[in-house]
């Protein structure tokens, strides 16, 4: 195994990107994230006695587990050089279907299956349009973002689905051993699978290749259309999974559910060291990034800071993560 040095966003903007192999040395972005994470935990512990409680910490993971799952599949899409802004809307769509089925007496397994199916179909619609008509993903997903959530609005208007089978809430609210939420376990398992997939399989290598130079990848015999199609489908499936878990945790389906999640997901991916232009990034990086966001959000909650402030912070983090390295690089060029 070889390690290649990490290049920050600054070097990546507009120009070359570097393939990331599984890091052996944490002397890079992932290390910085780890330091930031520890700093946030320190800060949280110092301002609130409730923080350093294992139960509380594990509880807090529920607030970001669903988003974290979206982050995993979104990472692949962004490394590919694309983006999918419709993920939050797919959750709303899946939630609507789940809520409707529940209302009509469906059992929990059916609800889970249905959500996965609807999510996958939504992803297939995205991937299908993008690949068949060769249209940029950004525009297509802006369109489907409206369409999918729009369907939720058509079905629900300003109402909500709130009746679910009794055992349904176990999914999103249940714990293993009374301590670790099922959702978090699902996330950890998925994170491991995605890490292996991206960094140790041939598919991962082809995704990096496509993200760096899709044309050369095509000319090298990589089936770029197929890979793109499947990644968007998987992204949809993941949204379906996140959707049913979120519904189970919250116990209700509203057409504005998960509103604005796409911003948080993209911000987490970018903070995790993935180049927004594609071609580089790691799964450990985005896992750390998600934890950073999660602990930050948890801490702010403990301080009774309103949720909307987190939105502002997320927006600032998204821009700062990309801007700061560029500016730093330019300033250092002046010094020499």
């Amino acid at each position, binding site marked *: 195994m070889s390690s290649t040095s990490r290049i920050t966003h600054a070097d990546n903007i507009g120009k070359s990107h570097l393939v990331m192999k599984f890091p052996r040395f944490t002397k890079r972005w992932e290390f910085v994230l780890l330091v930031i994470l520890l700093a946030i935990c320190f800060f949280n512990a110092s301002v609130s006695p409730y923080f350093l409680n294992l139960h509380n910490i594990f509880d807090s993971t529920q607030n970001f587990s669903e988003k974290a799952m979206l982050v995993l599949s979104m990472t692949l899409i962004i490394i590919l050089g694309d983006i999918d802004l419709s993920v939050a809307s797919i959750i709303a769509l899946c939630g609507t279907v789940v809520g409707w089925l529940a209302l009509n007496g469906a059992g929990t397994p059916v609800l889970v299956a249905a959500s996965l199916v609807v999510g996958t179909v939504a992803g297939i619609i995205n991937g299908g349009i993008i690949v068949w008509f060769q249209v940029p993903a950004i525009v297509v997903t802006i369109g489907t973002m409206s369409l999918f959530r729009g369907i939720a609005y058509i079905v629900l208007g300003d109402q909500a689905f709130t009746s679910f089978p009794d055992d349904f809430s176990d999914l999103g609210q249940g714990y293993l051993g009374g301590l670790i939420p099922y959702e978090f376990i699902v996330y950890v398992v998925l994170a491991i699978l995605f890490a292996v997939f991206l960094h140790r399989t041939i598919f991962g290598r082809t995704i990096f290749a496509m993200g760096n130079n899709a044309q050369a990848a095509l000319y090298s*015999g990589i089936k770029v259309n197929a890979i793109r199609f499947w990644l968007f489908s998987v992204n949809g499936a993941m949204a379906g999974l996140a959707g049913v878990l979120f519904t189970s945790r919250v116990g209700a389906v509203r057409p504005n559910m998960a509103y604005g999640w796409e911003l948080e997901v993209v911000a987490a991916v970018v903070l995790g060291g993935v180049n927004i232009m594609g071609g580089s990034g790691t799964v450990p990086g985005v896992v750390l990034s998600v934890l950073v966001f999660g602990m930050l959000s948890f801490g702010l909650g403990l301080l009774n800071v309103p949720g909307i402030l987190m939105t502002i912070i997320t927006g600032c983090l998204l821009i700062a993560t990309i801007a700061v390295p560029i500016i730093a690089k330019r300033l250092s060029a002046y010094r020499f």
Partner: protein
Amino acid sequence: MTMETTVTAGMPVLSLQGIKKHFGGIKALDGVNLDLYAGQVVALIGENGAGKSTAVKIMTGIYRPDDGAILIEGNPVHLTGTQDAWRHGVTAVHQETVMFDDLSVAENIFMGHMATRAGGLLDWAGMRERAARILQDLESDIRADMPLTALSVAQKHMVEIARALSHDAKVVIMDEPTAALSQQEILELYKIIRRLQAAGKAILYISHKFDEIFAIADRYTVFRDGCYVGDGMIADVSEDDLVRMMVGRSVKQLFPKPQVTIGLPVLEVDGLGNDREFEDIRFTLHEGEVLGFYGLVGAGRSELMEALFGLKPVTHGTIRRHGAPMAQGSPRDVIDQGIVYVPEDRQKSGVILPMSIRDNITLPSIASLAKGIFLNDKAEKTLSERFRERLSIKCADLDQKVSELSGGNQQKVVIGKWLATTPDIIVLDEPTKGIDVGSKAAVHAFIGELVENGLSVIMVSSELPEVMGMADRIIVMHQGRMVRSFDRSDFSAEAIVAAATGLAGKGTQESTDAKTITAA
């Protein structure tokens, strides 16, 4: 500012003195001189990689020289960009067209220096008129308000020339202006150049077609490997003299053609066409054969090869491999049939610059090297080591980014990645374009090795000496059609070039088309 010197007779209009330019560690220009005189055509001659394009970019302000001086009418200048160059009276027609596909012909000609009238409003009528006049002078049938998308490659080049002429320039630089032009259009271009000369302009003409150089130029300057070799009057030299200055050795050494027995057919193409870029293509490729495809830029050769490689759909015709129809839906299908394609634009389609040498070489073979779906680092390392050695790829180590390699070594990486798939047929599109002389010879020698080992090679090339030296047969294409094919025994430079520009050869259709161009 220095004192203005008055222009005396015999003083160059534009002069490069001791210009040096380097990119990273690579010296593109190492102290070159170039003088352009009013009313005279200077031919700038040199191999690919000699530094001609870099010199042009310095004269047009795109690059800043690291050392040396640019003098315009005796006064040193520092050019800050294209518009600054225009202001100093220097314009250029570049090799690659730099056009706006979504805009009209007139806008393409005037973008960057559009004329305005009262209140800042654009003077459309004035610009349209001027554009029409320039195009008329060029004897072109292009209308000023046509959208650029309706033009062919050759016509777009004509618009490039019109753009250069739309400035009232003292110096007009033409970088390979005839690459896409037919014989008739080339003669028209000569007329334009003569007219510019008469108007007292200084012309720099870059080409490696000696017949053009001897037809149009008054003086010459030769570059080799970024260095100035010499200059003088065209009347005082012969073609051999120039070649010797360009290359430093005799031409014959460059193309070692091995003797190979040509075997059975390995690929049969019949009636192939795609309604837009090529049609009615028919040929057979044999084992151990080098089949050359010659033609002007825009003749449709690369498009044909891309279609063969599964990158474009084909609407008519058949492709047969070992007697059976070949699947051609995607590059993967074609690679699995043992046919590989080394594209012309190495950096865009050949290598993935930000990735390592090893990742590049193993990319097409990654599935076969893998253990199931998991990457096999050891096998990848072994494979890339093997090809590094076999092709003598100069690099620090295999984890180095391909972007850090020279053009020649990058080409070796591309060839290496394909050889790793053990193909039977290898299609090379302009394999030595933009490569230094040393690596060029290596590539040619390598092609010889390939056919000795029983592979078949299709070589698309725009360099006549190269294709005449390497190929067993040459197929000439013009405007998407096959005009003629030549066996090695019938090779004749004049006949091949004539066929490439659409004159002579099979079918009255080509000559009729030639007539309609001039008549319009």
